[in-house]
């Protein structure tokens, strides 16, 4: 019994140590998934956002990108939009916040592919947006190319994946 108890304690200790290790030193995939959730939260906004908060949150959104980060998107029903650099991204984020009363963004079905030797990664996910403008949720397949800079992941390029063409 004593040996069994010791073995069980040892196993519990190992499991606890492994869990703690994962919490303290999360892998790149976990970091990227967390980053994506933070991005979705930064892109979402409630009605009646104060002007200062609007600008601050738009700047926060742009800071998820590398300084030369680009966005090349053509969601259904909209014209293609190509943005380059944090300034353009910030202005576009403010523009969206001015155009819509509210927006809720979710990232679903996230698939992360890492290329550790180059410090790069790509992410495929379904972006689901609910806005004050559309009567039903809009979903869009997206691809992000990320780069690790000083231990943190930044978006280098965001683009839409198109299945249907008008």
């Amino acid at each position, binding site marked *: 019994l004593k040996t069994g108890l010791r073995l069980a304690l040892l196993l519990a200790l190992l499991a606890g140590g492994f869990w703690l290790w994962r919490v303290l030193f999360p892998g790149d995939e976990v970091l990227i998934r967390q980053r994506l959730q933070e991005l979705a939260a930064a892109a979402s906004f409630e009605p009646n956002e104060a002007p200062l908060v609007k600008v601050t949150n738009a700047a926060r959104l742009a800071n998820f990108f590398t300084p030369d980060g680009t966005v090349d998107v053509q969601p*259904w*029903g909209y014209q293609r939009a190509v943005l380059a650099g944090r300034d353009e991204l910030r202005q576009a984020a403010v523009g969206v916040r001015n155009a819509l009363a509210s927006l809720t963004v979710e990232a*679903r*079905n*996230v*698939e992360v592919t890492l290329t550790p030797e180059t410090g790069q990664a790509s992410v*495929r996910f*379904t972006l*689901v947006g609910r806005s004050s403008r*559309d*009567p*039903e*949720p809009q*979903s869009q*397949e997206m691809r992000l190319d990320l780069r690790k800079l000083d231990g943190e992941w930044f978006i280098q390029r965001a683009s839409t994946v198109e*299945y*249907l*063409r*008008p």
Partner: protein
Amino acid sequence: MRVLALVLVSFILIKWVIFPVRVTGISMEPTYPDGRIKLVNRLIYRYSAPQRGDIVSIGEYGQTRREMYMKRIVALPGETYFIRDGFLHVNGQRLEEPYVVNRARWQVPPTTLGEDEYLVIGDNRGMHQMHHTFGRVERQYIVGKVIF
């Protein structure tokens, strides 16, 4: 033994042949209301080409569950279509579409589909054209046919 066989067959069916989808949104109404669960056959188009009238799921069957479009095939490769005042015309003929109940005045200019392209539209044509996702899709993105 029978239970094991049943579990195995179910696993194979769900993994490689049939998968469930939940309808989200109103673009396939009234045929499929929002929230309805449907089953999609992934293998059917390995042995036959998609047909006009088939309701299909569109997207990619990846490692994770994905959002897919669910639409009806209304025009086939090589055909020319246009929509005038909400009525779809294919190769110069107005297509009879008994599944369309409400019709907004959609306008789409004449377009000829490529050799590998299908035109897919949801059944809810009462929606504003701008709010309804439809268009040309390559066959590689037609994942399967909705069977029931």
